[in-house]
C-alpha cells in the first residue's frame, strides 16, 4: 500500500470520526451521555424537551417539601410568557473539561436545567446553555468568558477552578452578567481584591467561610498542632491562608508548611517530610488529581497522622483516583456531600441522568443548586433583569420551602458568599460519610447585610 493511499485513509478515518462526534448526541464527551437537556458548543442538537403540561411527571411531590431535587411538578409556578426568542433563555457555561471538578460541575448544571425545564422553565422560558471548555487554563478561561459574554447570556455558570475564576470573572463583571461559580478561593468574593464585583456568586462555601467550621471541629477533636500542605495556585494558597488564620484564632499551632505544584505526580518527598514532624494532624488543600496521588502515597508510606481538609479531600473523584482504600479515615468540611442520606434521592436521579460519571461529588450538587438559585431569584424579580439580579440575591435567603431545588436552606451575604448548614465528612470504606452536621454561621449581619 503506498503511503499516499495510507494518508488518504488516515484523513478519511479521522474526518469520519470528527463528523460522527459532532453529529452524535451521546458520543465521545464524557458528560454528554443522557445529559442533553440543551444545545451546546459541542454540537448537541437541542433535544426536544417535554412540553410543560403543568403535571407532576414523577408523581412523588405533592406538598412542596421535596428536598431531593426531583421535584418536577412546577404546578405552583406562575404562568408567564417568555420574553425571549424561541421561548428560551440562554445561559453560558465555561467549565474545565479536563478536570473531574469541571466535568462534575457541568453534569450538575445539566441536571438542574433538565429539572427546571421539565417543571416549566423560568418565567415560562426553557433554559438553554452553551458550554465551552477552558482547559483549566486561566488565560483560556478569560478568553472563553469574554467570548461567552458576546452571546449575551442571562447568567454565566462556572468556572470551578479558583485560578480560572479569579481571572475570568473580570469579563463577566465588565459585561454585567451574573456569574455563579463553584470556586472556593476567598479572594473571589473579597471586594478589596475583586474590584468590588457585584456579579459574582458562589454555590458553596469559600475557604474563609468554611475554615472556622472545620477548625472548631478539629479543636473539639483535640488537635493542637497541624502541618499544612497545599497546592501552589489560587485555590490552594487562598484556602491555606484562610485556614491559617482560623487555626491561629483557635489556638492551633502551625508546624510545617509545604507547597506542591499543580498536578505534581510524585508526592513522596512531601509525605516523608510531613511524617518527620511532631504535629498531630495534617491539613490538606489540593484539587482532586493531587489529592488522589497524596492519598496513595500516604498509604504507601504508612503515614498515620489524621488528614483534614476541604471538600476535595473526601470527594468521590479524589477517592476514585487514589489507591483503593487509601483515602479511608480522611476528614473534611464539606458544604454538600453527594453520599449523604439527605441527598439520596437526588443522587439516584443524578446517576440515572449521568450513568457515565462514576464519582459524583460536591461539584455536581453545586452545579445543580446554582441553576435553582438563578431560577428562584429570577422569579422573585419577576423578570430576567441582569442589572437587578445582584441586589436581589445579595443578602437573600432561599429556603427549601421557597425552592426545593436548592436542596438546603441557603443565605447569601453582601459579597456573594453563602451560608448554610454543612457537614463534617469522613471517608469510610471508600465512601464519604457524614459524621457531623455543622449549623449555619448565621452572621450575615457581620457580612454586609
Amino acid at each position, binding site marked *: 500500500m503506498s503511503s499516499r493511499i495510507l494518508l488518504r485513509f488516515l484523513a478519511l478515518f479521522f474526518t469520519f*470520526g470528527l463528523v460522527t462526534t459532532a453529529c452524535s448526541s451521546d458520543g465521545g464527551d464524557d458528560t454528554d451521555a443522557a445529559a442533553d437537556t440543551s444545545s451546546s458548543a459541542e454540537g448537541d442538537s437541542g433535544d426536544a424537551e417535554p412540553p410543560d403540561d403543568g403535571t407532576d411527571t414523577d408523581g412523588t411531590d405533592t406538598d412542596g417539601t421535596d428536598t431531593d431535587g426531583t421535584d418536577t411538578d412546577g404546578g405552583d409556578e406562575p404562568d408567564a410568557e417568555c420574553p425571549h426568542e424561541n421561548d428560551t433563555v440562554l445561559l453560558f457555561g465555561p467549565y474545565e473539561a479536563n478536570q473531574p471538578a469541571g466535568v462534575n460541575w457541568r453534569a450538575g448544571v445539566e441536571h438542574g436545567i433538565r429539572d427546571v425545564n421539565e417543571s416549566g422553565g423560568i418565567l415560562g422560558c426553557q433554559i438553554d446553555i452553551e458550554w465551552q471548555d477552558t482547559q483549566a487554563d486561566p488565560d483560556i478561561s478569560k478568553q472563553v468568558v469574554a467570548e461567552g459574554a458576546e452571546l449575551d447570556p442571562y447568567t454565566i455558570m462556572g468556572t470551578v477552578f479558583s485560578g480560572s475564576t479569579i481571572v475570568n470573572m473580570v469579563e463577566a463583571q465588565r459585561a454585567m452578567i451574573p456569574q455563579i461559580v463553584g470556586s472556593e478561593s476567598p479572594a473571589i468574593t473579597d471586594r478589596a481584591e475583586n474590584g468590588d464585583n457585584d456579579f459574582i456568586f458562589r454555590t458553596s462555601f469559600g475557604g474563609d467561610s468554611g475554615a472556622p467550621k472545620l477548625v472548631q471541629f478539629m479543636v473539639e477533636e483535640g488537635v493542637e498542632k497541624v502541618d499544612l500542605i497545599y497546592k*501552589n495556585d489560587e485555590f490552594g494558597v487562598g484556602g491555606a491562608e484562610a485556614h491559617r488564620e482560623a487555626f491561629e484564632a483557635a489556638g492551633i499551632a502551625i508546624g510545617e508548611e509545604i507547597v506542591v505544584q499543580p498536578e505534581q505526580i510524585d508526592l513522596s518527598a512531601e509525605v516523608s517530610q510531613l511524617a518527620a514532624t511532631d504535629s498531630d494532624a495534617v491539613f490538606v488543600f489540593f484539587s482532586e488529581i493531587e489529592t488522589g496521588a497524596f492519598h496513595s502515597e500516604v498509604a504507601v508510606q504508612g503515614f498515620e497522622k489524621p488528614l483534614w481538609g476541604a471538600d476535595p479531600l473526601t470527594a468521590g473523584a479524589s477517592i476514585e483516583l487514589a489507591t483503593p482504600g487509601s483515602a479511608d479515615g480522611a476528614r473534611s468540611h464539606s458544604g454538600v456531600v453527594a453520599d449523604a442520606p439527605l441527598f439520596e434521592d437526588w443522587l439516584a436521579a443524578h446517576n440515572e441522568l449521568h450513568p457515565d460519571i462514576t464519582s459524583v461529588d460536591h461539584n455536581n450538587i453545586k452545579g445543580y443548586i446554582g441553576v435553582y438559585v438563578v431560577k428562584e431569584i429570577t422569579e422573585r424579580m419577576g423578570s430576567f433583569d441582569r442589572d437587578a439580579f445582584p441586589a436581589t440575591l445579595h443578602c437573600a435567603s432561599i429556603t427549601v420551602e421557597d425552592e426545593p431545588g436548592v436542596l438546603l436552606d441557603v443565605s447569601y451575604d453582601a459579597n456573594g458568599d453563602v451560608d448554610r448548614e454543612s457537614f463534617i465528612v469522613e471517608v469510610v470504606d471508600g465512601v464519604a460519610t457524614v459524621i457531623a452536621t455543622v449549623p449555619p454561621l448565621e452572621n450575615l449581619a457581620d457580612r454586609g447585610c
Partner: protein
Amino acid sequence: MEQFLQVTISGLATGAIFAISAVGFALLWQTAGAVNFAHGEFIMVPAVLILALGTQEPTVGIPDFIPLIGGANIGVALPSAGLPWGLLIGFALTIPIAIFLLGYLFKVSLVDRLLQPGGDDIPLVIATIGLGLFLREYVHEAWFATPQPFPSVFGNGFWRPGGVAISADDIGIIVACTIVIGALQFFIKRTYLGRQMEAAAQNAETARVLGIPVNRMVLLTFAINAVLVTIAGLLVSPAINARWDAGINLGLLAFTAAIIGGFNQVRGALYGGFLVGVIQNWSGAYLSTLYRDAGPLLLLILVILVRPQGLFGRAEERRI
C-alpha cells in the same frame, strides 16, 4: 537518613518513569536520526488503548466513531486478585495497533516525507509537534477529558524495610525499565540486526552499499519504538493516570532526561531518567518544593554547556 533514603528511592521510581519514556527519543535518534516531539503523546495513546481494550473499570469504551467496532466496549473485566489479566490482554491487543499506527503509519506518512538523508530536521520537528497536538485533542474529544485511574500491573502492595516505604509498583517499574533498556542496549550493540540498524542510521548510503536493507531497518526501528511506547504506557500510567494531556509533561521531562543522559545512547536514557527523578525529589525535599522542577532544568543547562553530548553520550561529528 531514613528520609533521605525514602526521597532517593521514590526519586528512582519516578526516574524510571522518565527513563522508560526517554528511551524512545534515544532509540529513534540513534537508529533513524529522527526526533519525535509527539513522543509523550505516543505513550499516552497506548495507555488509553490498553484501558479501552483491556478493562471495564473504569468505564472507558471504544469511541463511537471507530467505524469497525461501533462503540462497543469489548473490554475484559479486571480480576480483583491475582494477575491483572484484563490489563495484560489490553496490552497484548494494543501492541499490534501501536505498531501499525505509531510505527508504520508514522514512518510512511511523516518521517519518510520530511526526513531526507543529510537534510534539515526542522520540518519533522514541527510536524511532530503538530501531531502531538492533534493526538491530544483527538483523545480529548473522542475518548475522555478527565483523568482515568489506571491499575498497576504490579498491584498495590508495598513494604517498609527499615522504615523506608517502597511499593510493588515502584520496584516493578525500576526493574522493568532496567531490563527493557538493558535488553535494547544489548540488541543494538551486540546483535547483528541491531548493528545493521545503527549503521543504517549513521550512513544510509554506505549501509546500502554494504547490503544492509536500510528501509527495512528503519521500519524495524519504528516498530520497536511502538512496542516501547506501549510498554511505557502500561508502566507509567498508574502513577500519572490515563490522561489526554499526560504527554505534555511526560514528553518534556523525558526529553530532558534523554539530553542529560546522552541523546545518542539508549543507556543514556536510563541514567538520565534516574538522575532527573532523584534530583527532582532532592530539590523538593531539601531546597523547596517550589524548586522541584528547577533542579533537573539547572542540570540540563549545565550539561548542555559543559558536555553537550550528554553525561553518557558520545561526541558526534556532522558533515556540513
